[in-house]
Each structure stands twice: as C-alpha cells, then as structure tokens.
C-alpha cells in the first residue's frame, strides 16, 4: 500500500520533469483537480453517506472568492495568487457552515435535492449580484506575465498536486482517527450512532465544511488557471456530478477509491472528447462505459475487486 502510494506520488511529482509537454501537463492539471475534488467530496459524501450533488457550488464560490480578492487587493499575476488560496479555503468553509446547518437536517434523497437547490441558488446569486461578481459578463483573473508557454502549466500543476495531497492527508488522517469511525457510523446507522453517544451533528457539519473548504481552494486555482469564469460555467452541475461519479467509480468511503476514479475518468473524458468528440456517438460511448462499470462493480472498483479477491483467496485456502 505504502509502496504503491509512494510510486504514484513520485510519478506525480516528477511528471513535469519527465514529460514537460504542456498539453500533457494541462491534462495533468485537470486530472489532479479531480483527484482533489473527488477526495474532498469523499470526506463528507463518502464517509458519512450524505451524497451532495451540489459541491460545484463551493467550487464556484472558491473561484469567485479568489477572483474578487485578487481584483480588490490588486494582486498581480504570478506566484502571489497561490498565497491567497488558503484564505479562500477558510472563507468557503465558513460559508459552508450555514449551508450545512440547513441541509444536513434532511437525509438521503431529500439531502441530495437540497444540495442541488443550494448550488442553483449560488449560481443565480453569482449572476444577479452584478455589481459584485460582474454577473453574466464573467469575472477575469490576472494573467501571469513573463512565464514561458512551456512553463505556465507547471505552477498550476504543483498547486493542484499540493491541494490533492492535502485532501488525501486529511482523508487519511480522519479515516484512522476516532472522528473517522464516527463519520462511518453515521453512514451505517445515524440514529444508532447518536444513541451510542457519537456527536453526529458536529461531525457531519465539520466534515461538510472541511470538504467544502478543500473544494473551494481547488475552485480558486481552477479559476486562476482558466483565466475567466462565468456563473453557469464554474457553478456547473456537471462538475459536481463528475466528482461524485469518480468517488463512486473508485469506491466511495475508501481513501484510494476517489483517487483511482479521478485518474481513470478525467483523462479518459478529456481525451475522448478531443479524439472522438466530433464523432456523434461520443456521449453514448461515455454512458455505456459508465453503465457497464456501475452494474458490474456497483460498490466501486476498489471494494468490489477487494471482495472478489478475498473470496478467491478464501476459495484457494479451502482447496
């Protein structure tokens, strides 16, 4: 486990050196973005079982927070904007608290819909609060000056990597702690967990805010990377659904599952659209692959394979 993680981590760290091709790094940036997003989502959605389809709202909130701070504080393009990103995380997490306070009163399907409703409300606010956000005209970010075309992607790549590693570290630390046990207990049976003295309310709100804060920081870096954001393109339901899909594909509630899901899905999606996108059956192909995985490995790749391998091993022992 550790060796594998080490190999993967080293590969990720060295990628810009091994393959400095910008088109490749660009895919790396978006892939790491989703590794971070799926892992961050998993901290709340995977561990507690509260499936939020509205995390794109926090993604956009983060992007707008960073964009507005850079604009008002007149931070020039370059390395400086990355230093503001942690503040974005705190702001997003703080704003996620009241959202969570309301949304987490509902459960299961109702919770899913409430998170979607919050996402659309944020999107509408971003559009309607024109004096603050620029409305539908969008919000621009400073553009780094003096970075060569071959180098531009590198800082963004490492920023996304750092955020993904941060999310993973938090996910890992939680999973091994008392808190993690509490979160999983909520997923298994919230009422019983409460009866056993687990502070379910504090735990699920805390996990929700941490998850939202991480997603917000990633959204900030994304906005800076793509240089311009619009309400409907950055608070995009598809971004919210993608991170959930990746977590489920790899195995929601596991540490490595969301990472695996993102590593498989995001490059595949970007490449598929690039190579096969002009073929009319691109969507059908995507849906077919996705359906096949969900039906054959319904619990996600890692748990399903683990269960299968365990049963083989058990069979082998019996033989």
């Amino acid at each position, binding site marked *: *486990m550790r060796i594998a993680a080490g190999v993967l981590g080293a590969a990720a760290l060295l990628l810009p050196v091994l393959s400095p091709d910008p088109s490749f790094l660009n895919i790396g940036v978006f892939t790491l973005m989703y590794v971070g997003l799926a892992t961050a989502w998993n901290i709340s959605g995977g561990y507690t079982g509260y499936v939020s389809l509205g995390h794109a709202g926090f993604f956009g909130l983060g992007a707008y927070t960073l964009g507005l701070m850079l604009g008002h504080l007149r931070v020039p393009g370059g390395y400086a904007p990355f230093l503001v990103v942690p503040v974005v995380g705190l702001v997003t997490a703080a704003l996620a608290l009241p959202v969570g306070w309301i949304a987490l009163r509902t459960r299961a399907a109702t919770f899913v819909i409430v998170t979607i409703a919050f996402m659309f409300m944020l999107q509408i606010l971003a559009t309607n609060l024109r004096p603050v956000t620029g409305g539908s005209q*969008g919000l621009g970010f400073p553009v780094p000056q003096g970075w060569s075309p071959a180098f531009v992607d590198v800082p963004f790549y490492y920023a996304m990597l750092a955020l993904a590693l941060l999310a993973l570290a938090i996910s890992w630390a939680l999973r091994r702690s008392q808190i993690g046990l509490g979160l999983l207990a909520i997923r298994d049976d919230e009422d019983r967990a409460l009866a056993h003295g687990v502070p379910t309310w504090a735990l699920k709100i805390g996990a929700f805010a941490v998850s939202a804060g991480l997603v917000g920081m990633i959204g900030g870096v994304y906005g800076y990377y793509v240089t311009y954001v619009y309400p409907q393109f950055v608070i995009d339901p598809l971004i919210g659904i993608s991170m959930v899909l990746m977590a489920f594909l790899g195995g929601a509630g596991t540490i*490595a599952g969301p990472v695996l899901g993102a590593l498989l899905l995001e490059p595949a999606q970007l490449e598929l*659209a690039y190579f096969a996108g002009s073929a009319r059956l691109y969507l059908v192909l995507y849906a077919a692959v996705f359906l096949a995985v969900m039906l054959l490995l319904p619990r996600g790749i890692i748990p399903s394979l*683990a269960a299968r391998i365990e049963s083989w091993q058990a069979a082998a022992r019996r033989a």
Partner: protein
Amino acid sequence: MRLTILRGAAVLTLGLIAATGCANGGGSAGPGRPILVGVSLSLDGDFSGDGKALQQGYQLWADDVNARGGLLGSKIRFKFVNDASSTQQVVTNYQNLITRDRVDLTFGPFSSLLTIPASEIAARYGYAFPEPAGGGPHVFDRGLKNVFFVQPAPVVNNLVSYTKWLLALPADQRPKTAAYATQDDPFTQPQVDRAKALLAAAGVQTVYSQVYPAETTDFTPLALSVAHSRADVVVLGCQLQDAIAFVQTFQQQRYSPRSLIETTGPDQGSQFSDKIGLANTEGIMVPAGWWPSVKTSANDQFVRAFLARYGGDAASISADAAEAFSVGQVVEQAVGKTQSLDNAKLIQALHSQTFQTIQGPMAFDSTGQPNGASFLVQWQHGQTVPVYPPGVAVVKAEYPKPNWQ
C-alpha cells in the same frame, strides 16, 4: 492486495502518459504538406446548434481554397475537436491543438464565453486568433493583440442601424413606446442597452424593460409581460430558442407590435421560419452582417457551394456559417499578403489592412474589434432582405409589421 490494485493504477497512468506523449501528430506545413487549422467547436451542450453551423462554414472555405489549389501551394486541412460547450475542454483543446498537433493556424470557437479562455491560450503561444462569434465587450478588454472578431460591427453597435432607421421614420409614424427584454448574456445585453439608450434619448418611451437569465427555458411569463405592455416597438436580446418562444406567445396573446427586432434567431434561416411558420416571419427584423442575397465578394459561390453540399434553400443558411467562412477569407488574404504562415506576421497584417469577405469589407482596430456598422435585415415574403442603410437596401422596409397569420 490493495497494493496490487494501486500498482495497476500506477502502471495504467504511466501507460497513458506514454501513449499520449507519443501521440504528437501534425507538424508544420511544408511544400506538399497540408496546412493544419485547429478549431474547437461545441458539438454537444448549450451551443451545439451554432457549433455545427460554424463547422459547415469553415469546411466550405477549406474546400473552396483547396479547389483553387490551396494556400501557398498547400491544401488546407481542418482539425475539429469538440468542447461540449465547456471551459475546461476548450482550454484543453486549444492547448492540445497547438502543442500536440502543432496546428499552423487556430480559428475561434462559438460564443464569447469560450472565446476568452481560448484566446488566452492562443496568445500564450503567439497564435493569431481570428474568431467568428466572440463579440462580448470583455473579449477585447483583456489587452490581447491576437484576437480578431470577424463580424462587421462591434456587438454593442449591432442595433444602432435599427435605431437610426426607426428614428428616421416620418414623425406621424414614429413609435411612441418601446419594450425591451434581453438575456443576461455578454452578447445580447450590451446591444439592447445601447438601443434603449438611443431610443429613449430620442423620446421613445420605455414602457417595459427586463433582463432574464440565460438559462431560462420557460419564456411565456416574460412574453406575457411584453405583450401586456402593448408597446409599439419590441426589442429582444435573445437566442434562437427564445426568439421562437416570444413570437409564439405574442401570437397566443394576439399582440402584434408595429416593429419587432430580435438580435439572433431570425437570421437562422429555416431553423427559425420552420418553428413559427413562414407566413408569420413577415416583417420581423434582425441586425445582420450577412444575408443570403448580399452582393459581396464571393458570396454567390459561398451560397452555391453551401446548397450543393448541405442541401436546403438559401434562406436556410445560418449566419454563423457565413461568419466562419469569412474568418477563412480574412486569413487567406492575410497569408497571401505576408506569403507566410508565421503567426506574428499574420497578426501584424490583420491589424493593418482591409479584407474582403462575404460580410463585406472588414478592418480591425488595435483591440481586434471591427470598425464597420451592421445592417438591418427584414423577413419579407419568406426571405431575409436588407432594408437599411439606404446604400445596401434593396427594398423599402415594411412598416408597420403586418399582423400574425
């Protein structure tokens, strides 16, 4: 056991690295080698209708040039990729087109929303970025020197011809009241705001003015409000879908304004007329840089080639296709002048000359905005004809607009 899986993932990732790393194709053009032009189009998602029309226009231009022996002796080949109307994908696509496929030229995608991030990537690599459809004001205030908006007029001025025509009507016919509704969109809103200011300044009273979200799908309550205002003139900042919905609700409400102009929709040929019925198009206006019968450089060939290849009738050709074709024409002339595919030289040439296109002559200011004016086009007897300014008008504008059939 977990370890095995993770190792598998690592191998898979590295495999992917190897696979994509080797996928470099293209290479710059030389004698005999085709000139590769990269474009990202929205073939899925919000802008898929326009994406298709742009593709048709670009392809027709390439066919036309290739039939004439190519550009600098080389054939033109397009590489079209799909961005599914998403920022992330449009960034990835231009990045890939430039660094992986090493395209010689890049042309623009659909909409201001996708043009801004895409033009930043092109600027980073020093590529000229002529584009047919990104006209929102913010496209030009980013300080980029490589963007060229290939339409006759800056978007803000799109409705200026309309206001001039309206205000030039004899005093006893002049409208007294006007209603405005526009999508909250970087393309439509600036032009409607401009028109409203001009008309209001000339004494046309604003009786209704509303902005609605670009995501709106149910336009009925809005159209109801406009109909209720009983304004003489209705100015709508809309796309095809709402252009249709407003007309239908006006019919339901038996409200026929004396003049109706829609920023987009009536210029989409049969896509528009099929939905509201050909008879009901009579008198509807649209600002345009191009219409099927316009007498401009090579427009006849364009229309003939379009019909030969895609069928239908002249009225069914979308202006999107003509705008894309014009991008090709502009670049062809710039390349002809500089005798090279060097993007730096092209950018310089594009800034300094006037080009002949099927949308008429065109020149760009330092920010890449065109300096011409748009024309006013009206549906008359089942086709769109220019009615203003007098220099290009072929018939008199019909006013007031006849009642719905």
